[in-house]
């Protein structure tokens, strides 16, 4: 039981931190521009595919450095020449723009790279078990994923709270006009934030590609869950996104690891049903079976009881 608990925690941590890399960019972009970027997970997928192509020629590490840079540049260009033009027409137009972009990216990726799974592998140097516990290996690559994600969180947090640029960004979130009046180039800041946000998503794709497999559906699998995190954490709150990511990562991991289900619960209260009961499927549900919908359940609960999210400040 202990081994399951430890590994479930580690697995939850890996998933949670990966989700945070995506959610951090999304929440930053939202808090600055008020744009819910539906194409955010597409930048994650782009990261994985760029890194795959680069790694074919220059190896994994070159991919790790260049792929997020390319994705970030693409993101900045999208903001400069796409979003900024659409911005005039209001938030709905922006929403529809990113929504369309998500499909465009998915189709483009299938067009260029094809529809089959890409053989994108983790580097040989990290191809060893970091430690073995109760006969189970924890691969060095997963340790590397945790390290990178934690590093990003610390850097991002320090930049936003300690540096001058961070202060300007924070000010631009709440008082864009004042910041512009002080002589700062707010559109440039927006472009920068969008670029960095998408680069983070790209980086998440680069390190997730080898473990979660690189295929055209990878954005769709992760896309909806990232929105759940941003809403649960509180729109625009970096710390909230961090807590929500870990919460959801661990929640899913523990739910899968558990063996509890309706039969056990019903036994506890002394009720049992015939297997011919019309709702038999419901009475035999187990927690691992419903694990993937738990985040959405949590989302509904949060929206009912704390609509601002865990750490959100917005009241409007």
């Amino acid at each position, binding site marked *: 039981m202990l*081994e*399951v608990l430890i*590994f*479930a925690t580690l*697995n*939850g941590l*890996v*998933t949670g931190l990966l989700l945070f890399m995506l959610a951090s960019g999304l929440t930053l972009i939202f808090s600055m521009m008020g744009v819910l970027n539906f194409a955010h997970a597409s930048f994650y997928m782009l990261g994985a595919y760029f890194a795959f192509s680069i790694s074919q020629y220059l190896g994994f590490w070159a991919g790790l450095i260049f792929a997020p840079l390319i994705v970030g540049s693409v993101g900045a260009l999208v903001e400069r020449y796409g979003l900024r033009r659409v911005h005039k027409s209001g938030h709905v137009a922006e929403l529809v723009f990113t*929504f*369309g972009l998500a*499909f465009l990216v*998915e*189709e483009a990726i*299938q067009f260029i790279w*094809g*529809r*089959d*799974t*890409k*053989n994108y*592998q983790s580097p040989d140097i990290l191809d060893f*078990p970091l430690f*073995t516990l*109760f*006969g*189970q*290996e924890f*691969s060095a*690559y*997963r340790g590397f994923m945790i390290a990178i994600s934690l590093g990003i969180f610390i850097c991002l947090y320090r930049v936003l709270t300690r540096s001058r640029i961070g202060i300007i960004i924070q000010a631009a979130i709440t008082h864009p006009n004042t910041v512009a009046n002080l002589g700062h180039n707010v559109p440039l800041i927006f472009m920068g934030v969008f670029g960095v946000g998408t680069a983070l998503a790209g980086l998440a794709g680069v390190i997730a590609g080898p*473990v*979660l*497999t690189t*295929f*055209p*559906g990878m954005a*769709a*699998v*992760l896309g909806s*869950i990232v929105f759940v995190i941003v809403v649960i954490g509180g729109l625009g709150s970096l710390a909230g996104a961090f807590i929500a990511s870990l919460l959801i990562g661990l929640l*899913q*991991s523990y739910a*899968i*690891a558990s063996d509890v289900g309706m039969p056990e619960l019903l036994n506890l209260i002394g009720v049992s049903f015939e297997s011919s009961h019309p709702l038999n499927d419901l009475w035999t549900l187990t927690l*691992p*079976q419903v*694990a*993937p*919908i738990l985040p959405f359940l949590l989302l509904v609960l949060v929206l009912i009881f704390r609509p601002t999210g865990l750490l959100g400040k917005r009241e409007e």
Partner: protein
Amino acid sequence: MKSKIFSFRLNGLLLVSLLSLSTASQAQEPVRIAFMDPLSGTFASIGTSGLKILQFAADYLYNSKGGILGGRMIEIVPLDNKQSPTDTQLQFRRAVSDGLQIIFQGNSSAVANTLSTTIARHNRRNPEMEVLQINYSAVDPALTEEDCSFWHFRFDAHAVMKLNVLTDYIAQNQDIKSMYIIGQDYSFGHVVADTSIRLLNEKRPDIEIVGNEFHPIGQVKDFTPYVTKIVSSGADAVITGNFGADMVSLARSIIDSGLEIPVYTFYAAYDGITATLGEDGKNLIRLVHNESSNPIPTETRKDFIRAFKAKNPNNDVTQQRIVNALQMMVTAMEETQSTDPYTIALALEDMRFTNMSGEELWMRGSDHQIFQSLHVSVHTDEGVEFDADNSGFGLLSEYHVPAEETIVESSCQMQRPRR
């Protein structure tokens, strides 16, 4: 929104191919066949590779040799159902309004069930515009058992037949004392789990079932938490019916966790899966399937594969049964000189056909289930003449069961249309 973009593109393609065809053979109208499978989304790679095989087989076997029925070309019309029962209904309407009367479909038993019910109802109401379902891959036994239909023909062995073979093979391995079963949470996944448990209990009562897990289809990001449970259960082997991305991710997680136990599967090869498993999966991953893999038995089939590879260097002939289905359907058309679904269906019943591998296939008339030899193959790079994904790795057949021994009884009580 996505479907709009996509169907627009397909429409364009269709229009172009129609135009070019009408100029080529003014007098002879083509025989049009719908191919309805996921061509976008999570499972797009399987659908696309099936489409390429059907398209190539039609061109290579018939169109390049002057067509069928005295000069009519075969035209394949791709319809993207995104592997969703809802989109299947929409695409079916489209197929009907386009006048298509034969539908090839294989991926997902849930979709095949929907299609079978829809077609049965449609044919009852429109006796002059009937539709025939050629199922080349959906293996839920119900399709040829309690839910069997006169308009449905299956060209793959169903899950219980395959599991019979697989559990026979597993039963021979005395090292296996415990088994973990994991699968997608839908009809096929449940059939695999229930049947495996039943058959293993009969054949090897000493094998303990230490896990029976279901996960949502196409939704799992990371299988590591599931693999953690497999490891801590101490299982000696794993059975899974997973396919597509769910199969790769699961196998990848098992390998990454350092677990070196055999994994018995239905679909762990091709479309990037073989390349992704590579060296790490060698001698661990096994598949049960029809149509033997390496060694390929006949020169005819070798030539076919080579020709396919020459045209589609990045794809493989992943499902030879699609070719069987096409050949048998054309044979039925030629015999009856007709493209009427009802006539073809009658000709297909109890047809015996020698395929490219030189083996006689039998389409049982009472339930429309095909019978042919079944094989268990291993993922390896030794003795593999025809590899998969150009990776050097491929499937080597280890265990063969002749067609006679795969025959199972069916509970099918077919409603035959009156004419």
